[in-house]
């Protein structure tokens, strides 16, 4: 259990691991996540399940190495075991026949979007996918997503692929072209989900976003992941992670995700220092 059986470096700090986890693979559905600890002293961090294979009993996780926890995770090799792996957590995405659905993914959020795109297509929706990244080489799962999309559009910040600009620029053009859109799903960085939600609100297109706050337990007992949705406080882990994008207080979410920024820095410097000393 929890053994890494495959590992790919998608781009510099962007890594993909396939982990043996038969029970999680058996019960996972699109939109759900796992809580991972890389080692005994590690944090519990949530990572969305990018794919699962019930027959092989494996799940795929894609993550960007940013801080200590993701760097520790990225340092594990095939044959290593995760110290702790728990899931599938959160509510599965609502997969129904909406009609035409636009799936917007940004950065590493594209990985979380993939199983949702696949399920929506299989449900009989017309799926238009819009993927965004800073630059071409950071674009992930393009082929997988295109396999289940009727149309695929791309935006990069530097224009190295697709349209130069943001996913919202592509989405706006699509809406203004008169395309009838029944539902939008957005998964990615908070500013992207916020911008998409603001745009679709103007056009009154129902929008679902998948939130990624700091978590500890992942099962509704600690409340570290609480977010403001409308007038209510919700726990992203058990009430979400998907919410109505028009009701989410993204500014509050952004601030909450900054709350340990200082400690994260201290931890990272210490980790990098010990890594460096270990290599000498």
């Amino acid at each position, binding site marked *: 259990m929890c053994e890494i059986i495959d590992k790919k470096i998608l781009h510099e700090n962007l890594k993909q691991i396939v982990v043996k986890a038969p029970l999680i693979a058996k*019960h996972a559905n699109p939109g759900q996540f796992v809580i991972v*600890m890389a080692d005994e002293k590690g944090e519990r961090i949530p990572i969305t399940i990018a794919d699962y294979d019930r027959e092989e009993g494996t799940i795929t996780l894609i993550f960007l190495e940013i801080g200590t926890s993701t760097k520790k995770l990225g340092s594990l090799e095939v044959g290593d075991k995760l110290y702790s792996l728990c899931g599938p957590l959160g509510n599965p995405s609502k997969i129904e026949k909406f009609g035409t659905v636009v799936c917007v993914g940004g950065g590493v959020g594209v990985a979380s979007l993939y199983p949702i795109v696949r399920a929506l297509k299989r449900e009989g929706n017309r799926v238009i996918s819009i993927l965004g990244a800073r630059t071409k080489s950071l674009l992930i799962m393009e082929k997988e997503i295109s396999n289940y999309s009727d149309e695929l559009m791309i935006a990069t910040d530097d224009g190295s692929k697709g349209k130069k600009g943001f996913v919202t620029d592509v989405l706006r053009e699509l809406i203004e072209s008169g395309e009838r859109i029944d539902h939008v799903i957005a998964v990615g960085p908070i500013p992207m989900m916020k911008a998409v939600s603001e745009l679709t609100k103007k056009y009154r297109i129902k929008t679902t976003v998948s939130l990624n706050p700091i978590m500890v337990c992942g099962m509704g*007992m600690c409340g570290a992941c609480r977010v403001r949705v409308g007038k209510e406080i919700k726990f992203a882990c058990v009430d979400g992670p998907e919410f109505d994008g028009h009701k989410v207080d993204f500014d509050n979410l952004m*601030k909450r995700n900054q*709350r340990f920024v200082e400690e994260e820095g201290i931890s990272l410097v*210490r980790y990098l220092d010990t890594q460096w000393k270990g290599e000498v």
Partner: protein
Amino acid sequence: MSVRKTQYEMPKLDPKERIKTFSEVALGYDEETAIKEAERCLQCKDKPCVKGCPVGIDIPAFIKAIRERRFEDAVKIIKEKNPIPAITGRVCPQEKQCQCMCRLNKIGEPVAIGRLERFVADWERRKGYKIPKIEKKKSKKVAVIGSGPAGIAVASDLALKGYDVTIFEALHEPGGVLLYGIPEFRLPKEIVRQEIDYVKALGVKILCNVIVGKTITFDELRKEFDAIFIGAGAGLPRWLGIPGEELNGVYSANEFLTRVNLMRAYRFPEYDTPIRVGKRVVTVGAGNVAMDCARTALRVGAEESFIIYRRSRKECPAREEEVENAEEEGVRFMFLANPVRFIGDEKGNVVGMEYIQMRLGEPDESGRRRPIPIPNSNSVMQVDTVIIAIGQRPNPLITSMIEGLEVRKDGTIVVDEKGRTSIDGVFAGGDITTGAATVISAMGAGRRAAEAIEEYLS
């Protein structure tokens, strides 16, 4: 022969020293003191103390064994009813249970039953456990959901009777509230681990990282096991429902304690999970959990730790001993006051608390006098961290996944006196049936359910 009227003191770490560390505060009796304290016991024939014990330990018998230096026998007598005496000896509210029934109360202080229980349990831990022989293995399989006090009790009882028992724990380490909730300085985690090892040695299998309803379905469990016990506890934090609770620096007691205890944030950055408290911490509430939070805050670096409570000291739900420990360590109490809102800065960090003075009115349904706000008595104080410790409810994660399970409005599972739920073959006990209560009452419920499960399976 006259009996000494007062208990022998149990040595404690000096308050000035102890707030710098997470070392255990109470140090326990040595052999001679334990024997002297045991000699205070009157050995009443009708054993009133046993009536006060939720699991019915034969208290006079184990005290007699201590008196006669038969420590091994003393442990054996306790373990007939309670598999984890090193834990209950530390966290049981004895003053409201066995000790309040003691005849010595008429002339002075009761026998220090808890300290004696702790003494023999620690004596055994140092010596190494004796694992009782399990006579006949039975083929019937029992699943236990949750590895806290209720789950441990039901699992070890059934294992001793020969059943094939598997515990499913949602977190990455077993122990439930003993691990994530109660701080190291009150209950060293090494002890929890040893007591869990004892339960494993009885043949109980413990699977961590399994959330029933998520990792496996309840129906799958039903197919594989002949009976199921739900002891998932009360893990859902209550909130005040006032403005500013979403600010950075406002924690639920569960988040604060889980970070520090389970994730060992007090050893950050050696451990990766951070905690930040700043200079001034306010804990809302005055139960045992609130005392744990306020005392923990001092140990992770707070200069000032306050407790704000809407009633007076007399109504504090915490054990008297815990209130005293907190006071000794410098925790300051704001009685008859209640927060109305928390104030944040532009970064979303909490910087202030507005609160209002309260007075006590007529008794409410709980029998305690109802706190009433005094109009126009608001003040604001500067704060860096707020911890909300006003109680927990059962987490609906499991119960919502089980069709046909009768659950009350507050999330607790409806059970009869034997722990039977509305579903045949499904039992429950502990905080998930009562709301947040004590370790020992959860164990008592587990033991009663174990009997009912045996009845059901035979």
